[in-house]
C-alpha cells in the first residue's frame, strides 16, 4: 500500500493505506483517533466533520490521497484540555444527549466562528444545518454557539 504523510493536530504521521481510503477511516482505524464519527459515509450528516487548513470538511468524503500537505484538525485537536470556548460553552449549556454527532457539530461550529466570530441566528442556522442530530439538541447548539461568541441568548420555557 502507498505511504502518505499526514499532519494531524500538529503531529506528523506516516500511514500505509489504500489511496482511496477516506480520511475518516485513516483517522479512526489507522491512527485510533475515534472522536471523528462515522454516520452516513456519504457526506449527508456531518458526524465526520474535521478541518483541513481550517476549512470544514467531511472526512468520509475525502480520500487520504487528496489531503496532501493540508493540516488536519480533529475534535481531539481543538484544544488539549477542553478549553476551546465552544467546548466550554457546550459543557455549560449541557448540549449533548447521545453525543454521537457532537464532535461534528463542534467542528462545524468552530469553522463557523472562524468565519463569523459573532454569528447571528441566521448565520448559525446556515452554518449548522448540514449537521444532523437525531436527539434534537439544535436549540442548545445555538445557545452554546452564542455563548462561545460572547453573546447572550434567550431562554424559553421552564417550570410552572
Amino acid at each position, binding site marked *: 500500500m502507498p505511504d502518505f504523510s499526514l499532519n494531524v493536530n500538529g503531529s506528523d504521521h506516516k500511514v500505509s493505506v489504500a489511496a482511496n481510503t477516506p480520511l475518516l477511516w485513516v483517522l479512526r482505524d489507522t491512527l485510533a483517533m475515534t472522536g471523528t464519527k462515522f454516520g452516513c459515509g456519504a457526506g449527508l450528516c456531518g458526524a465526520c466533520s474535521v478541518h483541513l487548513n481550517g476549512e470544514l470538511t467531511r472526512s468520509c468524503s475525502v480520500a487520504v490521497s487528496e489531503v496532501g500537505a493540508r493540516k488536519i484538525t480533529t475534535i481531539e485537536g481543538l484544544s488539549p484540555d477542553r478549553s476551546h470556548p465552544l467546548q466550554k460553552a457546550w459543557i455549560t449549556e449541557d448540549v449533548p444527549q447521545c453525543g454521537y454527532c457532537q464532535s461534528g457539530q463542534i467542528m462545524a461550529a468552530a469553522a463557523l466562528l472562524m468565519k463569523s466570530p459573532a454569528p447571528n441566528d441566521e448565520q448559525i442556522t446556515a452554518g449548522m444545518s448540514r*449537521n444532523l442530530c437525531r436527539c434534537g439538541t439544535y436549540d442548545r*447548539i445555538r445557545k452554546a454557539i452564542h455563548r462561545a461568541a460572547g453573546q447572550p441568548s434567550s431562554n424559553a420555557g421552564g417550570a410552572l
Partner: protein
Amino acid sequence: MSPVSRRELLLGGAAAGAGLVIGIYGPRLGSLGMLGGKKEFSPNAYLHILPDNTVTIIVARSEMGQGVRTALPMILAEELEADWDRVKIEQAGASTLFGDQTTGGSASVRLTWDPMRKAGAQAREMLLAAAAQRWSVPVAECKAEKGSIKHEKSGRVATYGDLADAAGKLPIPSDPPLKKPEDYKIVGTHVLRLDTPSKTDGSAQYGIDVQREGMKIAVLARAPVIGGKVASFDDADAKKVEGVRQVSQIGDSAVAVIADTTWAAMEGRRALKVTWDDGPNKDLSTAAIWDGLKQSADKKDKKAVTLYSTGDVAKAGGRTVEATYQLPFLAHAPMEPGNTTAIVAHGGCELWSPTQVPQDVRDSVAAALNLPADKVKVNVTLLGGGFGRRLEHDYGVEAALVAQTMPGTPVKVVWTREDDMQHSPYRPPSLHLLSAKLDGSGWPIAFHHKVVAPGISSQKGFPLTNGIDPDIYTEGAFLYPIANILIEHVPTETPVPLAWLRSVWDMQFGFATEAFLDEVAAAGGKDPLELRLHLLREDKEIRFADDHWKTARLRGVLQLVAEKSDWHKPLPAGMYRGIACWGCFNTYAAEVVELTMEGDQPKVHRVVAAVDCGTVVNPNILEQQMHSGVVFGLSAALRGKITIEQGRVQQANFDDYEPLRMNEFPKVETYWVKNTEPPSGIGEPTVPPVSPALCNAIYSATKKRIRILPVQG
C-alpha cells in the same frame, strides 16, 4: 477487570472489610410491557463506598442520550447525602445482579426510583450507625451531610470513606426512612450531565469506537430482499482487496468480509459476488401491505380483540363522524450505525456492544453459539442513540457468529448507514378506523377506534397478554371518560421484521385519536381545547390495562399548554395552530404547534410542550428529553417513511430518510407541572402529541385533513 466482575467480587468481599457494598433486593417491579412480559427477579442496583472516600454508583441501564448515567445516580446520592462532586459512576454490563436491565419504555427513572432511594437510605443509615458506635453517642445526634457524618455536640466529623469499613459490617436495614421532598438537595435541581465533558473532546467511547489488540473489522453483505438467502458466493475478487483476511457465510442470509480495516472490509464487500435466493417476498410492496391491512379491516370473520370497552358504541345514537387514518413503516436511524465487537475464546464469548438489552444479547449469543449464558460476557458501551433500535439483539448475535469463524481474534462488526436503513426491523404500519357519535349539543357520546396492524411482540414470539399483543395491550390508553367507548385491535401478519420505536403504539394511537378528536370538535362546532377540557371536566380515575390515569392531570397539562401558548389570543395573520395531548408511560403531555403554510407544506415556527411527569429528578435532562421527543415526532410526522418495492427497502441513507435539520427546527418551549407524584417516563411522552397537533394546525390553516402520514407524502 470489568465493572461487573469487580462488583461481584466486592459483593463477596464486603464482609471481609473491602468497604460498604449495598445490594438492593427491591420489590418486584414488574416487567416492561413492551417486552412482552419478560420477567426476572433480582436486585436492582448497587453502590460502593471505598475507604478512599470514593462513592461509586453503578448504572445498570444503558446511556443512549436520555441521561441515565446522571439521573439514576442523583436519586441514590440524594438519599445517601452524598457529596455529588465526588460521586463516580460505573456502567454495568449484562449481569444477574440487577434485575431486568432493559433500557426502554421510558422506564429507567420510574422503575428504579424506589429501589435507588432505598439503596441510598440504607447506606446512609448504616454510616450513621457506624459513626454513632465509634463515638459512643446516640444515632439521633448524628447527621449525614455531603459525604460525611457529623456529631454537632462534640464537633466530630467522619467521612463516608472513614466509616465504610465499619458500616460494611453492620446489618442492612430493611426499611430505612426516606427523605421528604422538601428536603431534597440534589433531586429536582439543574445538575449538569456527568457524560457531557467526554462528549465535547472525542473521548466518549461508543460501541463503534471499541479497539482491541489484533482486532479485525467485518462488514456483511445481507440479502437485499427481506427473508432472502445466500444461494452461492464468489469471494475471489473480495480476497484480492488488500487487507481482506477472510470471507465467511454467516447464517443463511449474510456473507461477512473480515479485514484489517473498516475500509478494506467495505471494499471487499463491494468486490464480493453473491447470488441470492430472493425467497417468498420478492414481490412484496408497501402497496400490497396496505391492501392487506384494508382487507383485514373489512373481513367480518376476522375477530378483533377488545382493548377497552365501556357502554355500548353500537347502541349509542346521534350524529356520526367517521375517518380512517394510516401511519407508515418507520426506521429508527440512530446516528451511530449498528456495531458490536466480539471475541470467541476459551469456551466463551465476550462482547462490547451499544445495546439497550445486554441480558438479551447475552442469552441470544449463548443460544446461537451453544454456550452456557455464564460463558457470555456483555460489556455495555455508550450508545449513539437508541430509539428502540438497540432493543434488538441482532448486532450482538451477528458479531458473535462472525467472531466464531476466527477464534481468538476480536472482530468488530460494523453496519453502514445503508445496512441500518435497509436491513433493520421497522416500526409497523397501522390502519385506524375511527367513528364517533355526537349528541344534540355537539358533544361526543360514543368513540370507536379499530386498529389494524401487525403486532411487534407477537411477531417476535412473546406470549399474548389477555389474548392481546402485549405492547398494544399496555399502550394506547384512551383517557377521555366518554359513556360509550370501544377500542379494538385486528392483528395481522407481515414478513417485514418489526421493532419498537420510541413511544411505540402511543405514536400511532395518539395521532389517530387526537387528530380525529379535532374532527369531532369541528363537527360539533367546538374549539379543540374546549372539547378536551369538557370531556375531562370531572375528576376521574381511568383504569386502562394495568395503569391508572387521572383526568385532572391530563386537564392540568392542557390548561398549562393553553396558558403558555396564549391559546385564547389571536395569532398574527397567516399563523395557525393545533393542539393535542396524550398520556403514556404514566406521564401526561400536551402540545401546541404553530405554523404557516408555504404552498401546500407547513413551516412549523413554534411548539409549546407541557408535561406532568410527577417528581422531576433533573429539570436539565427533562428539558433535553422534551426537545428530543418533539424533534423526533416532527421528523416522523413531516417525512418519516420506509417503503418497500420488490421485497427491498427503498430508502438507503439520510438523503431519502432525513431527520429534521436545524433550519427546520422550530422554537420549542418546555413547561412542566410541579408536584410530588412518583416520577414517570419522559423519554417518550412528548413524541405522540406532535403529529396530531401538527395536522390539526394544518387543518386550521387549510381546512384539509391530513389522515395519512407523513405530511410530505
